[in-house]
């Protein structure tokens, strides 16, 4: 696994939003995003980033402490050491106080045409 310099998220909330700050969980440390803009309320878009500078064993987007959060789609831009920046996109998921969703994905493996 590579060392993550920074990552940015862009989350499009569906019908059921939440008013709590958006948190992520990096190697089991729950933290808020830096430079957050927008919100996770219904139909809104939240964008945030974090300067990690560490190795990702696990990275998740955490559900609200109460209620449900319907995510329509979300994307994550990763900037990792010795790797080209890459973006991972995910579709619909609903989070609550008992769940979090994995957002970590290793850099794409090199593929070539033959």
């Amino acid at each position, binding site marked *: 696994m590579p060392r993550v310099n920074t990552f940015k998220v862009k989350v499009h909330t569906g019908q059921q939003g939440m008013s709590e700050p958006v948190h992520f969980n990096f190697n089991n*440390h729950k933290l808020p995003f830096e430079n957050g803009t927008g919100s996770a309320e219904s139909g809104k878009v939240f964008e945030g980033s974090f300067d990690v500078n560490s190795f990702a064993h696990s990275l998740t987007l955490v559900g609200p402490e109460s209620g449900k959060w319907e995510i329509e789609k979300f994307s994550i831009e990763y900037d990792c050491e010795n790797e080209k920046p890459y973006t991972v996109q995910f579709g619909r998921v609903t989070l609550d106080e008992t769940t979090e*969703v*994995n957002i970590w994905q290793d850099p794409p493996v090199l593929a070539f045409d033959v």
Partner: protein
Amino acid sequence: MNFIKRFFTGMKQEVEPESSVAEVEKSPAPEVSQPDPEPETGDVSNFPPVRSVLQIASISEGIFPKDSDEVLIKAQPSPTGDQCLFTVNRPLMKGHSWYFSDFESAAESPLAEALFCLDDVETVLVCESTVTITRKDKTLVDWVPLAKEIGAAIREVLMADNGLIAEKIISGLPSEEEIREGIQNVIDTEVNPGVAGHGGNISLLAIKGNSVTIQMGGGCQGCSAADLTLKQGIHTSFRKAVPKVGAIFDETDHTAGLNPYFS
């Protein structure tokens, strides 16, 4: 490491006020000098409950342009370099997979025969629209020269349109129940007793056609030797006990949980 510092600072701020409230509430008589053991239990319960981690598939934009008449093939060597996955823009074996262990097993299967004619090809696994190749020379990590030969061979067989897999293989494909029974039996009697010595366990997650998906747990999850155990131990046991098993997928998230082996 600034995020760790912030985490512990945050945790301290959250826990302390709650524990002091608990002590006041549960100690009505001020002269009681011995602290009630219950607040300590209360402190522990203040840790947030462990959440379950949802795994959802990322959205792939597709590796090939849509509606192309050409045979397009992408080669993707594994990170360890021991095998290479070839993805073709058309089906090779719909709904099933087949493992060709050597040239003899490729008889009457034009695709596998063509691939085994290449010097360095050791094994061939055909699954849906992919072919996975292992090579004989394990010291070579550069797949480009061999991958080009493999791509040309796959393309030639597809263009010839004389079938890809032997009819006897297609007609003798086992039922999912037959595969499930055989694989579960080998897991229970051979694989799990073997990995139990290391605190590990293997569970059968799914069967699709004759392809199986397993998950490694306990001491196997996150273990640096998991890949070796999977390829040299589990694959060998499965194929020996259930020769008609095709692809074997491992869906273990070796980084998940609070205590993967390496943490």
